[in-house]
C-alpha cells in the first residue's frame, strides 16, 4: 500500500505542494534536454548524409572545446587581452574543425567509399582513438576552465519568486538554450532553403541518384563533418561552462544514444524533440520516482528503457523513416 502511495499519489502531492521546485525541475530538464539535442544533432547530420553512425561525435566535443581553451591560453600572453584572444581563438578553432573535416574525408572516408556500413562505423572508432591520443598529447589530461567570460557568456543568475518560493535560472543555461535554438533554426533553414542543404538531404534520400545528378560526395562530406564540428564546439562551450573542460565530456555523448533511438537517426526534428523529451522525463522521473523508489541515479538507465519501450511500438523511432525494401 505504501509503495502504491509512493508511486501513484506522493509524486503529484509533492508537485502541487512545492510548485516552485517543480518549475525548477522542469527548467533543469529543459536545459539538459536542449544539450542532449545538440549532441544528437551532430550524429543525425552525419548519418543523414552518409549512413555513418559517427562514434567520434563525443570526442569531437572534447577536442573542439580543448582547442578553443588551449588556443586562448596560448594567445593571451601575446595579445594581452582575454577578449581579443577569444575573438582570435574562436575562428582558429573553427579552422581546426574544418581541417579535421577535410582530414577525415581525405584520409578515412574517401578510401572507404562503397565499403559496408560497419567498416565506416569502425573507422569512426579509429577517429575517436586518434583524437583522444592526439588531444591528450597536445593539451594534456587536466581539467581546464572554459573561457566563459572572455566569450561574453553571462555568468550571473536570474531569480524569480513564483508561489512564494524561488526559481533560479543560471544566465549561462539561458544562453545555452538560446544558442541551441539559434543553431537549430539556422540549420533547418540551411537544410531546407540552400542548395547545399538540399544536396545533403538528397544524399540522405538516395546516394546513387544524388551522385547521378552531379552532387559531389566529397564536398558534402566535408561540409557535413564541418557542421558536426561546429555543433561539437557549441556543445563543448556550453557543457564546459557548466563543469569545466575535460575528457569526461566525451561520456556525455552517450546520453545522445537514447535520444537517437527515440527520435530516429535521420530526423533533425526527432533529435530536437527526442532530446527535450528525454531531458524533461528523466529529470521528473529521477526526482519524483527514482530517488524515493530506487535510491536515485536512475538517469543512467531511464532514457534507454523509455526509448526501448517506444521502439517496441515504433521500431524506426518517433520520427524516423519507415523504409520498405523490395527484394
Amino acid at each position: 500500500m505504501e509503495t502504491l502511495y509512493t508511486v501513484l499519489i506522493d509524486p503529484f502531492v509533492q508537485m502541487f505542494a512545492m510548485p516552485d521546485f517543480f518549475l525548477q525541475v522542469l527548467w533543469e530538464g529543459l536545459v539538459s534536454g536542449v544539450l542532449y539535442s545538440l549532441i544528437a544533432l551532430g550524429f543525425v547530420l552525419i548519418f543523414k548524409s552518409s549512413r555513418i553512425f559517427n562514434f567520434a561525435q563525443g570526442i569531437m566535443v572534447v577536442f573542439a572545446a580543448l582547442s578553443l581553451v588551449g588556443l586562448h591560453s596560448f594567445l593571451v600572453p601575446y595579445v594581452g587581452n582575454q577578449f581579443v584572444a577569444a575573438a582570435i581563438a574562436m575562428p582558429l578553432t573553427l579552422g581546426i574543425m574544418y581541417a579535421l573535416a577535410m582530414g577525415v574525408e581525405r584520409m578515412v572516408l574517401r578510401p572507404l567509399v562503397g565499403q559496408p556500413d560497419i567498416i565506416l562505423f569502425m573507422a569512426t572508432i579509429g577517429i575517436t582513438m586518434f583524437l583522444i591520443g592526439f588531444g591528450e598529447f597536445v593539451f594534456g589530461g587536466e581539467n581546464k576552465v572554459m573561457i566563459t567570460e572572455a566569450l561574453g557568456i553571462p555568468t550571473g543568475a536570474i531569480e524569480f519568486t513564483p508561489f512564494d518560493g524561488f526559481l533560479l535560472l543560471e544566465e549561462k543555461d539561458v544562453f545555452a538554450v538560446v544558442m541551441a535554438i539559434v543553431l537549430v533554426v539556422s540549420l533547418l533553414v540551411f537544410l531546407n532553403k540552400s542548395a547545399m542543404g538540399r544536396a545533403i538531404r538528397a544524399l540522405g534520400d538516395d546516394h546513387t541518384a544524388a551522385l547521378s545528378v552531379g552532387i559531389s560526395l566529397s564536398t558534402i562530406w566535408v561540409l557535413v563533418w564541418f557542421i558536426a564540428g561546429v555543433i561539437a564546439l557549441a556543445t563543448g562551450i556550453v557543457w564546459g561552462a557548466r563543469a569545466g573542460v575535460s575528457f569526461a565530456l566525451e561520456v556525455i555523448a552517450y546520453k545522445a544514444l537514447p535520444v537517437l533511438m527515440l527520435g530516429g537517426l535521420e530526423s533533425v526534428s526527432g533529435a530536437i524533440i527526442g532530446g527535450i523529451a528525454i531531458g524533461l522525463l528523466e529529470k521528473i522521473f529521477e526526482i519524483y520516482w527514482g530517488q524515493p523508489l530506487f535510491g536515485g541515479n536512475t538517469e543512467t538507465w531511464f532514457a534507454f528503457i523509455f526509448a526501448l519501450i517506444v521502439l517496441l511500438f515504433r521500431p524506426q523511432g518517433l520520427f524516423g523513416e519507415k523504409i520498405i525494401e523490395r527484394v
Partner: protein
Amino acid sequence: MKHFTNFSRAVAAGALAVAMSTAAMAADGLNLPNLTYRTGPFAGTGTPIMNGQRDYMLMLNERDGGIGGVPINYVECETGYNTNKGVECYEKTKGEALVTQPWSTGITLQVLPRTNVDRIPILAPGYGFSPMSDGNTFAWAFNPPVSYWDGAYMILDYISDGDMTSLKGKKIVLLHLDHPFGKEPLPLLEKLAEMHDFKLVPIPVGLKEMQNQSAQWLQIRRERPDNVIMWGWGAMNAGAITEAVKTRYPMENFLGVWWSGSDADLQNVGAKAKGYKSISFNAPGNFPVMEDIRKHVVSKGNSMIKSEADLDTVFYQRGIVISLYLAEGVKTAQDHFGEKNINAEQLRWGLENLNITEARLEELGMKGMVPPLKTSCDNHTGHAGGWMLEWNGEAFVQASDLLVPDRDLIRPLELQKAADYADNNAPWPGRGDLACN
C-alpha cells in the same frame, strides 16, 4: 613520402631505444611501477598526483642516486582509471616489480587476491579497501596514512566540533560516485548515524552524470541537509562544486574527502566556492623538499608539469607524499636486511615497519607537510590523521589542527569486514608463512 619514411625510421629508432633502455633498467635498480591514469574522465585527479609521484622519484635519482644509492626505475602503465586495463597493467608490470600501485579502489579489489599468490605488496595510499588496515588478513596490502573510514570519521569530527552527540537530529547527505570508491565510507557512516541519531542520505552520482548533477542537487535542495559530504573523483568534483554554487548551498557546510580537494576542480568557480572544505592527509606549503624538486627536476626540464604554479597545488604535493611512503618503505627494508637491491618480499616488510617520525620528516624537508606515521603487522594504515583544508577563493589553506580517527570505534568494524572478506574468498591465506617481527 620521403619525409614520412624518415619520420617512421626516427619513431622506430626512438621506440627501440626506449624499449632497450627499459629492458636495461629492468635488469638492475629498484623497479617501482605505477598504474597511472593521466587519460580519461578521471585524468583531472590523476595527472597532478602522478606528476608529484614521478618528480619525487626523479629527484631522488638526481640528488641521491636513487634510494640507498640504487637507482629507481619508475615506470608508468596507463589505466585510464579503467579496472580491466588496470588488471592488464598489473599483469604486465608484475614480473620485475617490487610493488604495485593500482590507483583505483576497483583495480585494488581485483588485484588484491592475486598479490597473495604473486607475493607483491599493494601500496594504495589514501584509497582502496578500508579493512586492508588489518595486516593479519591482508598481509600484502597497505593503505597509509589514513583509510576512507578514518576520513569519514575525521570529517564528522570536524563538523561536530569534536562532539558527535551534537549531530543528533541533523541531516547529512553523502554525495558519492556510484562506484566501489564512492560506496566505501557507507558502512562507517551508517554505523555513526545509528550511534548518534542523525539522518544519513546517500545520493549516488553515475559516471555519465558526473558533469550534469542537476538532479542530485535538486534533491539536495529538497532535502535541505545540514551538511553535504562529497566522495567524488575526477570530473565529478568540479561538477558538484559548480552545482552547489548554482543551488546556493552554503559552501561552509560542504566538505569533501581528500580526492575532492584539487585546486583545478575549484578554479572553475573560483571565489564563489569560498568556504568549501576538504579533509587532507597533506598540508600544502613551500616545504624544503619542494626546493630540491625545483632544483633537481623542474629546472632541468624533466618534470611533466605545465607551469611552476602546479608545484603549489595540494594534489601535486600529495603525489610527493605518496612517493615518500614508498621510498621510506624501500629504505626501511634496505636498512633492516642490509641489502641495497631488495626484493618484493623485503619491501613488504619495509612497508609493514614504517616509522616516519617528526625528526625523519624534518630530515626529508617535509615537516608539517604530512603527519608522522607508524605501521605494524596488524596496522597497515598507520591512521596518522589529517587536516581540514579550506578553499579561500584562490587556493586551499589549512583550516584545522591535526584531526585523528577514533581507532577504538573503527577497529572492530575493520576486523569484522576483513573477516567477512576472508570468509567470502575462502580459502584466504591471511599472513600465511609470513612471520610478524
